[in-house]
């Protein structure tokens, strides 16, 4: 028989992980709800997930690729920028969604118990579906420009996805926690994301920063995007050091995010 003991909470215990597993169906339902709801009452529906990155890619290719002649490691600019955009949009949209997830689900949080971690995780999952859909364009581009992915390169893609997943969740958990108390996050975040786009080698190669490129490496998305280009397009050899730096930074972000989230979690329902 299930027994529940309710008492003043500790910050983190192993029980939380088990509980998360028990509630996996709810995780699925939240993701399903977000996907369903997002494209209801739109006429082209899920095609938006393709449309947005595609148009962005076209605009960037015209202005940065053709007009400004931004270097692209010898790869055609559209496909170069698209790989960057693909990962960047996954990261940035997941981050924005995660930060607002507690506020937007406020009515549920104050009425029903479930492990709160489910909400941010389901936001990231939803964005992952968008990512998968947008990948179709990449495949099309690769056919068009005649690129064959390297098999060994494809093997590190899951690792890159895990890093992106953890980076957006970690930072998102932190922002979601402070957003409960300080709504400023909602206003500051879009601005922050925009700035970050330029501090990440999405529209330009990291090599452009010359001897300062190691500073860019502290941004975990630098490692992800550089390595994705290396793996998919073979533009440069895979830089393992870069991946390890990203992994470490992400790991720290994740631990920090979870810690802050768990620490403030118990007051969400009281102050939200």
């Amino acid at each position: 028989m299930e027994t529940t003991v309710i008492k003043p909470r500790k910050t983190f215990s192993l029980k939380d992980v088990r509980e998360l597993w028990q509630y996996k169906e709810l995780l699925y339902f939240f993701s399903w709800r977000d996907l369903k709801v997002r494209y209801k009452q739109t006429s082209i529906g899920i095609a938006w997930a393709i449309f947005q990155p595609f148009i962005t890619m076209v605009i960037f290719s015209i202005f940065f690729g053709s007009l400004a002649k931004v270097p692209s490691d010898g790869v055609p600019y559209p496909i170069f920028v698209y790989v960057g955009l693909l990962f960047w949009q996954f990261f940035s949209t997941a981050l924005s969604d995660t930060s607002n997830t507690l506020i937007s689900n406020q009515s549920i949080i104050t009425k029903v118990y479930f492990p709160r971690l489910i909400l941010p995780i389901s936001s990231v999952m939803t964005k992952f579906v968008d990512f998968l859909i947008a990948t179709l364009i990449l495949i099309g581009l690769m056919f068009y420009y005649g690129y064959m992915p390297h098999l060994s390169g494809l093997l590190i893609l899951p690792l890159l996805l895990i890093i992106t997943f953890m980076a957006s969740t970690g930072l998102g958990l932190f922002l979601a926690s402070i957003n409960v108390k300080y709504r400023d996050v909602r206003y500051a975040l879009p601005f922050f994301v925009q700035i970050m786009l330029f501090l990440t080698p999405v529209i330009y190669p990291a090599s452009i920063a010359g001897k300062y490129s190691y500073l860019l490496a502290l941004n975990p998305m630098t490692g992800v995007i550089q390595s994705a280009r290396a793996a998919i397009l073979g533009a440069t050899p895979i830089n393992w050091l870069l991946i390890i730096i990203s992994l470490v930074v992400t790991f720290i972000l994740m631990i920090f995010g979870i810690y802050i989230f768990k620490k403030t979690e118990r007051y969400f329902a009281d102050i939200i």
Partner: protein
Amino acid sequence: MNSSKPIIEVKNIGKKYNITHQKGSYIALRDVLMNVIKSPFSFLKTKVKQVAGFEKKEDFWALKDVSFDVKKGEVVGIIGANGAGKSTLLKILSQITPPTTGEIILRGRVGSLLEVGTGFHPELTGRENIFLNGAILGMKKKEIAKKFDEIVEFADIGKFLDTPVKYYSSGMYVRLAFSVAAHMEPDILIIDEVLAVGDAEFQKKCLGKMEEITKGEGRTILFVSHNLEAIERLCDQCILLRNGEIIKSGRAGEVINHYLNNERNLSSVIEYTSKPNTEAQITKISILDKNKKPSAQLPINDEFFIAIEYGVFREMKKATLCISIFSEGNMLLNSSAADKEAKLENYSPGKYASIITIPPSLFNVGYYYLNISLQKPFIEHIDTKENILFEILNVNNPRSEIFNNQILGKIAIPLNYDTKRLT
């Protein structure tokens, strides 16, 4: 299974709120930063005091040292005036907020229902919402699928099953929501005031379903309600809370009588502290007798007034003030809005006061509840104050003499009997 142990053990539960947390709904980081820049030293001082624990914080104990046991299969009602701590207790039992002190042991699967339709999404269809809401309430997908037909049948929504619920009438919406909740099968069910929704007929159906659940299937239920009739009908045991403490517990009938005789909160003037970040707020509600003197006990033959003061902080468009009056059995007797010509007003920021006149003899002798809300109809309840009690007294009641001071019914307006002798 160890049946000798109580299924719910509540031991010395206390819940402390920090008043500063309670007041503002949220703080802007900007304000905090401005404080730091304007007066860095005093900011440091208060921070240090806070950390060192010297600062005198205003604590408020919503619950103090609450302990009780519930045996398997018992149905326990929790009653008390507004602010007695009922909802806080349920929130702790449902794990929405943790207690500050004490411990609760729940032996069995817990389902809590603090609201019907939690998580319903207007864009999703009835079918989709059944699954979503079920999952939020803690049901497994398989379970929901198994009960699906039963849920649909009880909700009586028929052909609208695949229509988004935003097109539902409010009655249909509530029926569907309650139906999902009623088909949860936890060992312990925690329910807050959910029967206060829907029309009278549906309320009856819900009560019937509740009885079926409690009596038939031997489930343990904790039930909070203002509907004393429902509590008396459903519960064996009852707990009376006042100011966060248990005042009396025992057999339902006795506790309810004690409450009716001693605890009724007949305050004629209620003031509310303001929350700065809301759009508008009700600040004061007074019940005034025919001479405009505050009193919540009113002679049946006199007119009386309900005076409501409210502040509008940001321009409030297409809004109205509404009052509804309920009888003790939670039946809605009357509702009205400030829009005499059936149109909504725009309120510019400022203070407002409305006085509502209740004509003489509208209500019969007894207790009544007022709900007052500032709302944008069908869009948003900006502020709501519920369960404000008043009593109609059997004074100078010329009609009641014939029937030994008792006339039946809730509406007491004298009807005109025009009688002629024909032969």
